[in-house]
């Protein structure tokens, strides 16, 4: 692993994009940052601006209104950026996959680096997904 890559993986800043979510995954993501699970151990912090982000967390079903916004966010992000699809809706569309307004799961719109399935995924599952992301390259 090169030095650059090592620094990158030691300091991933998260940006959270909630699509048409039921808020369950949002709360589980926030759980990861609370004292019990404490993702800041790995240097991960939640940032408010996409310009600072290294990881784009996408949850919720992406409907026709969300799609251009998600694309815009992805294009505005400084590269390299990793994308994590969280929850059943983010990975496959879940129970909304057949819906009228559904605009495809996240990986049909932007490239996805890791999937965390579950409805909602437990914080442990999200941490496991992130560790998978860290060990990937």
């Amino acid at each position: 692993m090169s030095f650059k890559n090592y620094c990158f993986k030691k300091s991933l800043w998260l940006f959270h994009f909630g699509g048409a979510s039921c808020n369950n995954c949002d709360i589980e993501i926030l759980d990861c940052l609370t004292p019990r699970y404490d993702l800041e151990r790995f240097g991960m912090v939640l940032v408010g601006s996409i310009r600072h982000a290294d990881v784009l967390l996408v949850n919720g079903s992406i409907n026709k209104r969300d799609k251009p916004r998600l694309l815009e966010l992805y294009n505005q992000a400084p590269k390299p950026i990793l994308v994590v699809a969280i929850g059943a809706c983010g990975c496959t569309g879940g129970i909304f996959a057949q819906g009228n307004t559904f605009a495809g799961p996240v990986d049909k719109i932007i490239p996805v680096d890791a999937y965390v399935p579950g409805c909602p995924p437990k914080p442990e599952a999200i941490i496991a997904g992130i560790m998978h992301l860290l060990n990937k390259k």
Partner: protein
Amino acid sequence: MAKDLLYYLIFPGLIFISVAGGLLSGFDRKITAWLQFRKGPPLIQPFYDFLKLLLVKETIIPARGSVLTFLAAPVFAFAGALISGLLILLPGFGFKPGFSGDVIVVFYMLTIPSLTYIIGALAAGNPLASVGASREMKLIISYELTFLLIIAAVILKAGNTIRISDIIQAQVEQGAFIGSISGLLLFIAAVFCIQAKLGLVPFDMAEAETEINHGAFIEYSGTAYALIKLAKYIMFFILPAFICVILLGGISLNGIQVLWTILKIMGVVLLITLIRNTNPRVKIDQAMRFFFIWMNLLVIIAIVLILFGL
């Protein structure tokens, strides 16, 4: 000449100031984590953040922004912080005697990072950045008068000298200024001032993450943001060092004094970290009232006490 370069670039210049600032920022994050019953990031996390931003990330220039101003502002912020650090540390450690009036120059140099944040934010062409810049401007207006009054009081207390090494000498002779009542009042006001200068929590309205998404820094990415981070780390080290120089009896490198110096600076950082973690963000008008009325009053009382010799 070669010795001067060594001073400016390695110790106590660029490399020492940056490393010390990064370690103190890591210390701040660790203490914050402990206060929240977390484990927290490793102590050298700020270096990972800085190197990642510098080496890995792409720098994006906003479409509606002014390119030159936007990219030059972080360089000036970093340069201002570094120059003020050198002006404080060279006389502070006794490497150079300094010149008459350097405490005034330090006062101006310490303002430059905040000013360049405003200029860079206004050049970004982002409405949230403009909100952040306007708040930062109001914050500067509120705390600078207090800060100037503190320096004036210190000058008065040190017997009308405007040279940093003479201020330290005066404290060596008559004991650290914080030992007297007026010195204690000045120290309280100074801690709140550096809290506002660093943009930490009671006064972080200029970069409120949860409200205006990092405000003034919203459009910065990659190398430009790395320089801003570096300027912030440097400020995190030199402002507590400046407080130590003007109020806590100076900094020194002789023998056991090194330990005292480190403890003093870490104590000031611990104090501002505790204030930051136990207070909510105030509104900008509350911050202005706090500085204009209460802090100025405190410093003026201290000046009157100094005139009475307390």
